């Protein structure tokens, strides 16, 4: 049973629950206390010791149900039970016929291999146990990809003694065709059972790997060209990134700064020595949280990137003090409120209906910004512009960008296009670039994460 628990821990890790060795020890101790007899209590005990958040509890609960649904076939498959009854009758009949035939021509069952005997006697529990042992021997818990299903099935069958069974089958076909027929059917059923076991193993152990692989691909996929069905996954990934950034940067911003003595605290701390200042206390400085003003191009191909970028920026409440977002294509509007109040899908749809899909005009959008919102910029503000800087050969008004840059702490330009394309065609990137603190490419989720992470880090 200990073996089973270890496999369960692996499966739990596969389900995305972080299970450390110390937690496995706790779980083992807890299980020792409650025993295995009551499944509900066992489930509660494992959930209490292993899962450390509500999400993990749900994932682990599912994992538990999947994992422990297999080993007890009698309760598990009612329809198999009814089959069992039939076959049990068969089995009841067959030994008698066997015993009668034994005297006659049929070969004695002792001549068969253990697997053949097991299959013929229809001992389901023994078969299940044999499958479990064999999957242990074939290290089923190492399965990673769905393409490995075939190889693991055959490994398990080999471990169970398929070779010997084949020999028996050949022999029987010659000597006792009817028994051979039954054995062949049983073998087919066995193959099916093994295939099921392997599929379940895949569901249990391979999830983590598959998810990592998928996320890895997704992280490096160009945001502008992802397919519609991947949008939801990408949103989930962006949320994950946001959580990571939050954890990294929402730590207390207090840090001691030597230089200014905190007289009150020093006196209090040194009361024990009659006020002689052995220990000194220094004044602390609270660090500013980032203030961000984001200008996002929502025309054509950049729209999708802007969507994810806005989602990311607006899920950073704990880290970022103040975000004001603006969207533009031919003219510019403020979208902060829409993004705060609505779900990401609705918000984006509304923004698109207001300013989206126009041909982009950076010049007039910058004019709009200077006219209405220049006062939002303070010396603590980081301005982020996200766009391809393709202004359809209209006046880029780089002078406004210079004034924005002068008023703010930093001006960061994120461009979804590759560096090679900058400056070609109607791209005004080099001209804008002179006024930016940083210009970087931002086409994938990974680049997006790095860009935002760097921006927030400058405030630490």
């Amino acid at each position, binding site marked *: 049973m200990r073996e089973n628990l270890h496999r369960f821990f692996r499966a739990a890790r596969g389900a995305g629950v*972080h299970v*450390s060795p*110390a*937690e496995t020890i*706790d779980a083992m*101790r*807890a299980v*020792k*206390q*409650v*025993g*295995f*007899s*009551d499944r*509900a*209590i066992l489930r*509660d*005990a494992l*959930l*209490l*010791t292993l*899962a*450390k*958040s*509500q999400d993990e*509890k749900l994932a682990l609960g599912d994992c538990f149900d999947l994992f422990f649904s297999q080993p007890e076939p009698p309760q598990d498959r009612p329809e198999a039970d009814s089959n069992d009854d039939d076959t049990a009758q068969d089995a009841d009949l067959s030994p008698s016929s066997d015993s009668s035939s034994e005297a006659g021509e049929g070969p004695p069952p002792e001549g068969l291999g253990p697997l053949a005997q097991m299959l013929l006697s229809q001992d389901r529990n023994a078969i299940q146990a044999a499958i479990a042992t064999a999957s242990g021997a074939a290290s089923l818990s190492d399965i990673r990809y769905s393409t490995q299903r075939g190889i693991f099935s055959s490994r398990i069958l080999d471990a169970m003694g398929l070779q010997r069974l084949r020999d028996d089958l050949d022999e029987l076909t010659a000597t006792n065709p009817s028994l051979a027929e039954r054995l062949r059917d049983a073998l087919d059923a066995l193959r099916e059972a093994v295939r099921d076991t392997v599929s379940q193993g895949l569901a249990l152990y391979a999830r983590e790997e598959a998810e990592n692989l998928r996320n890895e691909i997704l992280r490096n996929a160009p945001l502008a060209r992802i397919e519609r069905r991947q949008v939801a996954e990408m949103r989930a990934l962006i949320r994950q990134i946001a959580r990571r950034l939050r*954890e990294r940067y*929402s*730590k*207390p911003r207090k840090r001691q700064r030597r230089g200014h003595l905190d007289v009150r605290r020093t006196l209090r701390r040194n*009361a*024990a020595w*009659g006020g002689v200042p052995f220990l000194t206390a220094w004044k602390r400085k609270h660090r500013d949280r980032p203030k961000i003003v984001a200008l996002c191009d929502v025309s054509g191909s950049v729209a999708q990137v802007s969507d994810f970028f806005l989602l990311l920026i607006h899920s950073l409440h*704990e880290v970022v003090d103040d975000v004001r977002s603006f969207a533009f294509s031919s003219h510019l509007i403020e979208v902060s409120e829409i993004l705060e109040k609505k779900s990401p899908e609705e918000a984006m749809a509304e923004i698109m209906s207001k300013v989206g899909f126009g041909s982009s005009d950076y010049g007039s959008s910058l004019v709009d910004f200077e006219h209405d919102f220049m006062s939002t910029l303070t010396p603590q503000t980081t301005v982020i512009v996200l766009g391809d800087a393709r202004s359809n050969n209209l006046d880029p008004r780089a002078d406004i960008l210079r004034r924005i840059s002068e008023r703010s702490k930093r001006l960061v330009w994120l461009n979804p296009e590759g560096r090679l394309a900058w400056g070609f065609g109607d791209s005004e990137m080099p001209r804008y670039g002179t006024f930016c603190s940083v210009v970087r490419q931002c086409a994938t989720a990974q680049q997006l994460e790095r860009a935002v992470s760097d921006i927030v880090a400058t405030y630490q």
Partner: protein
Amino acid sequence: MAGQKASTSIEAVESGLAAQGYIASRQIATAVYLSQQIEKPILVEGPAGVGKTELAKAIAAWRGMKMIRLQCYEGLDEAKALYEWKYAKQLLYTQILKDKLGEVLGGAKTLHAALDQLHDFGDVFFSKEFVEPRPLLQALEQPGGCVLLIDEIDKSDAEFESLLLEILSDFQVTIPELGTVSAITPPTVILTSNSERDLGDALKRRCLHLHIGFPEQRLEERIVESRVPGISQTLRRQMVGFIHEIRSLDLKKLPSVSETIDWARVLVLLQATELDTEIVKDTLNVLLKYEADIEAAHPQITTFIAKAARSNVFG
């Protein structure tokens, strides 16, 4: 065998807590049982007002132990949570003992001899006498064990969390001047959190993690029954059903168990026999704590009452 024993013990926990007026779900009882058996703290998370703090009180009352409570807040530090030197007492004693000191050192001929003699008395002023134990140290010093409630741990700073680690895993603290103080009897530790911020993994790893959500309808009815005995059965069913309907709304703050109990008390005081639109409208401010929430719930009241009454008939 172990399983048999365990399930009866868990039932014992359940009935023990019930005797103190705390109706625990199976999961809560299992957590309490396990924390006792494998000596681990319980970290209780959940929305405000579902009885996290109440659980600690019930355990203390049931086991007849003292409850020591440490309320966390931003800026809580060692001196307020663990121990502090009694500075005033130290100063006072040095003043009083000044003459004595002269006598003791009077015999010494040289400065070295005086210093040696002084060393013998050196630790007098940093001894247990002068330590003011704060909740955490108090909890370790209880000879009969106790229930230590560390309330709203998420409100404290991350540094304080690290301070707790030694206590939570080994039930001991280290005071530089005195050495390590181990618990006489390991206390039962309950930490509560409203998930205002994510706690560190190190802290979570040392605890059993229990999430208390809103109770099911049946359980909540039992809770109301034990807390507000004066309420009639029909009214109890109706009001709990009504609250469950309210929780399906998208509100800023959902009413939790403590609000249910308050409301039940109010209804008993107003001598209501069953829910009607008037009385719900008048007392809705007991359940909902934001003006916007009350406005959102207002148009639904009649439907909810009808639904609650209907489920009553079939349930």
